[in-house]
């Protein structure tokens, strides 16, 4: 019920976006979006036939960057553990 899917806007007809979701095409009403309407190429979150939010590309990339940092930190700690032969924390 609360499942929403990220979709790429292919084109816009009136207040409806024609979107691509994992290769399938679907329509989404843009009625619930505020401010500047999204453009083709933008990603939106679709729920029950309505785009409920534009997906922030910057924030999405930032979250992934944080995950990469966790990964690096973990590798460092693993390396230290290998050298000392004991759990650090």
């Amino acid at each position, binding site marked *: 019920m609360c499942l929403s899917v*990220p979709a790429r806007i292919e084109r816009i007809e009136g207040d409806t976006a024609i979107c691509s979701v994992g290769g399938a095409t679907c329509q989404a009403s843009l009625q*619930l979006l505020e401010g500047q309407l999204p453009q083709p190429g933008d990603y939106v979150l679709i729920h029950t036939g309505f785009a409920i939010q*534009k997906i922030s590309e910057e924030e999405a990339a930032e979250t992934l960057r944080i995950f990469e940092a966790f990964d690096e930190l973990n590798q460092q700690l693993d390396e230290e553990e290998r050298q000392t032969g004991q759990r650090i924390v």
Partner: protein
Amino acid sequence: MKYIDEYRRREHVLALADLIRRESRKPLRIMEVCGGHTMALRRFGLHSLLPDHIELISGPGCPVCVTSRQFIDQAIALSRQPEIILTTYGDLNRVPGSSSSLEQEKARGGDIRIVYSILDALTIAAQNPEKQVVFLGIGFETTSPATAAGILKAQMAGLFNFSVLSAHKIMPPAMAALIDQGVNLHGYIGPGHVSTITGSKIYDFIPQKYGLGVVISGFEPTDLMQSVYMLVRQRETHRPAVEIQYNRVVTREGNLKAQQLLEEVFELRDDWWRGLGVLPQSGMAIRTRYADFDAGKRFSVEIEPTREDKGCLCGEVLKGLKKPTDCKLFGKACTPSDPVGACMVSSEGTCAAYFKYVTIQ
């Protein structure tokens, strides 16, 4: 697929699990209050990556599961009116009422149609001017803005053979009620898509009044593990707060246009929640100025006396007090193909998640 696959990388999930194991010392009981989170946590087996002293408990975040049986009975009564075409999201179709279900009514010839969007219900109303089309409005703040938009669209289009039976609810009163009713928790994984609409500000009272943290999470494995990690840090540093992990779609203020539509069409009322009872100002009633589109006001139908199943523990499961496997009916008298309680019916229900992903392990 963009914004999904990138958040499923196994090594990131394991790295986060490792960080959690290193930094978490204190017992931590976290509740997720969104059915989507319940399913994702089970599907990706994330419980098994956490140390024993971190407990993830499922809460009342499946809209179908908390909907009252009386609402189902009312929908069934409406579907028996010859002039009515009943339209509903698929989730409600198999939920047992007191003596029937929408699926059974359809088999008996009731005109019940499953729609993907309220816009489909409007199309049906336009195509069937001699009929009355009733849409069952269920769900939290993620779903209710679409219902509000649908009602406004019907009014603009002059579709006065369209109306909504509303069981829409809002999430914060349930999160407060759980703590007030004594459920032992240290933090919430906040609902991601509800918060897309409401913004994170609606949870500010939880750290302020109750001293519990809330982390609003996305639905992919790395999102959820990061959210658990954020709650671990809050707990270890004694700093409960509202934080947004899912910041690619959630902001502090939320979707203001959707909030305006909700305010325009709905007003709060006391409402009944399965497992939690009546919670003040937790349900969304259609405002009097849109009474023409309120099926509850337009159609007076006789509703059968509500009969609850004895032995079904859905209520306790929704409060996180019992596990699905504690229920005598689970996997025996109650299965996804023949459900007794709503928690087994909905794909986002805790019992359905357990049945699908836990008992088969």
